[in-house]
């Protein structure tokens, strides 16, 4: 055993946990090695010296005062305020997402035709993203970096697929497909609901997962992170496809998407909170 490693293990022995076999190996090294013996003694001395720093006891009745102060607060009012703040925060995020989408919609002008394979690839990309989001929710892999990685993966796949999946060609195909029904109430409703679900499901799942992952910091911040991630990484891809699919009916699709972008995080956070309460 080398002395550098032994030093790390000495700290681990003092403050962490060492397996018995490692402990034996360390002890035999320390017995043989003079510098490490000094290090061990020095660490022991350091630990006992640290204990010489004494701090005063809290003033009397401190906990009782704190409890009284907390219990007398109008908790329901503050919860309502927090909820209102959350809704406004998500409204802002939804508007950001909508603004991004409008820029992208304006930029995607239909020109080309589309092969069926390309539509299939779009479906596969989104299925992978949905799958990853639900897997996180079900298995409770509550890590922001996992969510970020998933979103990046989805965005990356969309970018890689872009040369094959010509967006204008999607629009063109849809235009032909819906040529007969354009302007009908039924088609408008269909696109409204589809736009809402398309946008709402990923952001709802993200918000629910983030809400639980970040509850020690702030539930609102969890929803915020989910919304920002969505707006930056997922929304553009969603709305590009929205534009492609809903040529001529963009407003209807966008209305559904915007509604979901605002309601999704709030609902997600609400569900996360309810699940936590029910587990109690």
């Amino acid at each position, binding site marked *: 055993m080398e002395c550098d490693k032994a030093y790390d293990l000495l700290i681990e022995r003092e403050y962490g946990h060492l397996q018995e076999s490692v402990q034996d190996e360390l002890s035999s090294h320390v017995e043989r090695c003079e510098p490490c013996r000094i290090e061990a003694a020095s*660490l022991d*001395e*350091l630990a006992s010296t640290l204990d010489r*720093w004494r701090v*005063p*006891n809290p003033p009397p009745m*401190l906990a009782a005062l704190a409890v009284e102060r907390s219990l007398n607060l109008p908790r329901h009012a503050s919860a309502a305020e927090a909820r209102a703040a959350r809704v406004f925060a998500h409204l802002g995020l939804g508007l950001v997402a909508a603004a991004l989408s409008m820029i992208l919609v304006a930029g995607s002008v239909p020109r080309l035709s589309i092969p069926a394979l390309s539509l299939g690839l779009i479906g596969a990309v989104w299925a992978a993203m949905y799958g990853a989001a639900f897997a996180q929710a079900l298995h409770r892999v509550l890590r922001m970096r996992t969510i970020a990685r998933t979103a990046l993966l989805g965005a990356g796949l969309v970018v890689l697929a872009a040369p094959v999946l010509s967006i204008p060609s999607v629009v063109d195909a849809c235009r032909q497909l819906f040529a007969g029904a354009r302007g009908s109430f039924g088609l408008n409703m269909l696109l409204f609901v589809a736009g809402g679900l398309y946008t709402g499901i990923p952001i709802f799942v993200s918000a629910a997962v983030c809400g639980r992952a970040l509850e020690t910091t702030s539930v609102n911040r969890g929803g915020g992170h989910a919304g920002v991630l969505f707006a930056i990484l997922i929304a553009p891809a969603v709305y590009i496809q929205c534009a492609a699919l809903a040529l001529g009916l963009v407003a209807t699709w966008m209305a559904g998407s915007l509604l979901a972008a605002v309601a999704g995080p709030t609902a997600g956070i609400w569900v996360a*909170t309810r699940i936590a309460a029910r587990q109690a």
Partner: protein
Amino acid sequence: MEADEVLMVRAQAGDREAFGSLATRYETPLFRFFCRMGAETDAAADLFQETILQLYERLDAYDPARLFRAWLYGIAHLVWKDSRRQAARRLERLTRWATLERGLPEEPPAGQDLDAGLDRDLIGVAVRLAISHLSEEHRAVLILRHYQELTYPEIAEALGIPVGTVKSRMHHALRGVKSDLSRKKVLEVG
């Protein structure tokens, strides 16, 4: 004695007594945590109250599958960081005024806020100063591990960082304090 998690579940269901028991149980540990992080006694009392208030406001957000102690220290650490941010802003404003009015230097002397004499034991004071010279992150880990006796995984959860980072911060903090105390001849060995 009922486990923290059990009391917390009862508090979530509206049991005020259970909430009170939790606050009492953590009164001294949390108060001392704030003192060791660098707060004066009055400020530590305020920070404790703020932590209990935050705990109450987040009752519904607690997941009983998680270790309560780590969760609570996570809240306390956030309360501490918020207070430091506010104090830094106040100090900046005051320093600017002082500089304008009296031509004082911009930089406050190191350790200025740590000379309130919490401890008359010179070794204790040396330890306090040595720890105060650590960075905020290293100090938090050292205090949570050595004084509050949280485990590495608990600290990781409380601070929202990986266990490996907790260990490396602990090593760094110990080296820093040890070299400081050795330089001042407080430590005899090494």
